[in-house]
């Protein structure tokens, strides 16, 4: 409780300092930039005006940083501490069940991690999960956005319905899929048998391969609206005059799509794919609810495994090592992705 009090007081103090700095700075700026004749400093003639110039320059340069200060301080407090602590814990023997036996153990957690019999299966699962989920969400989201970009009757209502999955919590979506794919009572098996597509019930959640497929399907279903919303917004920002001009010039629909639409929405697509990849890679809630990583880790991914390690064996050292590994993978991915997609040049015509 004492830590909480100190923490809150710390936040209050830092916020107040930030606000005070900005308040002080904006007063100076106002006096310096907008008061003509009333400011005694500026009425003293050219000499004193020159003296003030360098100071004003410094203030102008520091302005953005000062405005960012409160947010940065809060981020530092909220994320900085856990981040640094997880790095430290990754190199410690840190078991919640043995608080008296915490010590640095070098790279032991990483050795233990890569010595686990299922680690390569879990890494493989993670890549399949992320790749198919992002690809599925992108392709279906893009299709949906293109369809919704055209005007038709009740478009607003249709749009609201198809965007619904995004408003549901992962827990609800997880439960929905768990019951739908239940081997004995699930609606999917029932439907497939009635359509004569299968003759025997499939144990979706109890069969390696299928269990991961169900989680991927749920993830795709949940994420399509996000892609659709982002791409649709981007599509609607393309000036119609460009399409009209291309039409006059005799440009076909395919060429219009690849030469106009795609370049215009490219920055949005890049950022959306980037964000979704990071989110999907880090997400574990759907997996925990639908399969809990089973059977025998066949639907386990790195984050869900990290959760399991942290909260079933209470080995926070090993879980933190996994967290550091996840972070490293994501940093490499983001760097390579932004380089290869030439993000900083995207959208230039």
């Amino acid at each position: 409780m004492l830590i909480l009090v100190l923490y809150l007081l710390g936040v209050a103090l830092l916020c107040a300092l930030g606000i005070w700095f900005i308040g002080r700075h904006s007063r100076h700026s106002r006096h310096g930039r907008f008061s003509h004749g009333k400011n005694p400093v500026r009425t003293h003639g050219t000499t004193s005006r020159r003296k003030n110039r360098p100071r004003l320059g410094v203030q102008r340069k520091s302005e953005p940083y000062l405005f960012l200060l409160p947010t940065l301080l809060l981020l530092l407090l909220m994320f900085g501490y856990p981040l640094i602590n997880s790095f430290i814990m990754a190199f410690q023997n840190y078991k919640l069940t043995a608080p008296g036996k915490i010590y640095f153990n070098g790279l032991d957690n990483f050795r233990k991690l890569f010595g686990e019999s299922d680690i390569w299966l879990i890494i493989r699962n993670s890549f399949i999960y992320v790749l198919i989920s992002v690809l599925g969400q992108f392709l279906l989201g893009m299709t949906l956005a293109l369809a919704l970009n055209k005007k038709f009757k009740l478009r607003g209502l249709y749009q609201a319905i198809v965007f619904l999955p995004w408003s549901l919590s992962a827990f609800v979506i997880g439960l929905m899929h768990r019951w739908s794919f239940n081997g004995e009572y699930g609606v999917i098996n029932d439907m497939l048998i009635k359509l004569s597509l299968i003759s025997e019930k499939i144990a979706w959640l109890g069969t390696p391969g299928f269990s991961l497929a169900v989680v991927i399907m749920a993830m795709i279903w949940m994420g399509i609206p996000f892609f659709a919303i982002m791409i649709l917004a981007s599509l609607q920002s393309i000036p119609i005059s460009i399409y009209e001009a291309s039409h006059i010039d005799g440009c076909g629909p395919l060429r219009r799509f690849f030469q106009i639409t795609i370049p215009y929405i490219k920055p949005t697509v890049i950022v959306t794919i980037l964000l979704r990849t990071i989110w999907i890679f880090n997400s574990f809630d759907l997996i925990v609810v639908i399969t809990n990583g089973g059977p025998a880790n066949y639907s386990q991914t790195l984050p869900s495994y990290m959760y399991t390690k942290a909260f079933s064996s209470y080995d926070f050292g090993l879980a933190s090592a996994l967290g550091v590994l996840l972070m490293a993978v994501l940093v490499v991915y983001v760097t390579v992705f932004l380089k290869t997609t030439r993000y900083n040049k995207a959208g230039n015509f």
Partner: protein
Amino acid sequence: MNRKKIVLVIAFIAIMAGLAAGPSAEKQTTELRFIDVSPSPTRQEYFTTTFDKFEQEAGIKVVYESVPWDDAANKLTVLGASNQLPDVMTTWAGWLGQFTEAEWVVPLTDYIGSATDEYAATVTQLVWKAEKELYGNIYTIPDGMMVKGVFVRKDWAEEANLDLDPKKGWTYSEYFDTVYALTDPAKNRYGTSFRGSRGAFDPLYVYLESLQGGSAYAEDGSTLFANQEAVDAYERWGALYLNGAAPKDAINWGFVEMVDNFVGGLTGTLINDSEVAATCIENMTDDQWMVMPMPSSDKDGMIYNTVNSPYAYSISSSSKNKDAAWQLIEFLTRPDNNIEYCKLTGLIPIKTAVGDDPFYGPDGPYATFVQQLNDPAMVVPVAFGPFNYTDMHQGMMHEELQKYLLGKQTAEKSLFNVVLELESRMKAYLAENPGSAVEQPKGLL
């Protein structure tokens, strides 16, 4: 923003921090925190009503807290690590290794004093004896006693012309035959609620122990299951799933799915604790279900069955009012309160003073369970060990079994991976605790 506003912001946050800091200075009466790890509307109502009575009698206020069973181990571990455990906790016996190792619970031996003769033999000779052997002291007061039995679909057994008599009992071979006889895929009926996920090793381990006189370790801590006899038994157990006597989804089943599918009419047998009887009474008709005792060993004819208390009461070491906490436990286990609680939750009372209640007599719904507790052939096999095995119980044990059931590894490798890990922990425990010995099976008589 002017300075006044800044001062106001700081003052507001400081007040909020002050409010979060702790109890009001005006508080005079003792207040206890109680946490229930298996909440349900019935249990919550019982506890809150009983706490009101306790406050009237003892002048001590009790705040009820709860955490769903699936999250309970995690929450208590986090609370324990941050020294914030409530004064009185309902505790599962399987957590005691971890809790005593971390010193999160206090010994209760001095509190119990000479009152041991008030308690039933199941408490003194089984639960407390085991706690003393494993952890050197008594750490819990049972909330009620629980013993396992085999719940059977009575109507299915009659249709299949099976002669099942609880008084006569049965062997494991007869149990396996019954499971197969009750399986009828055409009618969407499976013989058993097979446990493939968390807790999968619990009934399986008892079956393996039934071939070793209830033991699991030799004196030096070596496992007794790294041999062909145990592998054969392991395969026989797994065959229930592999031969289709359980739904394929059962590989992911834990407690909830097992019970739901038995009560829901998908499976014909269910090995579980007496607490499930309350669910059966509520959801099934009398002609639909019956309880058979646990099967006896094919080797020596003894019944190996676990007897424990599902959510025993313990006092946390972070409690500032330990004497008041003990007063609360005494009140909860007072015969009148305990029998009310046991009837609500499907348990057998812990005090001798309530032993003659007709509800627990030969014609009551708990007849088979009480019969087992009085059976001279019943032996309580040893637990996984005195060390912390929570991580194995929540991961490795069922994952290894699942790999075998999925054909990803042999029965031998699957079994040996688990028992050899248990062996290494047991040997490490014996080495770290000079003078300690391997636990022995216990009988009541």
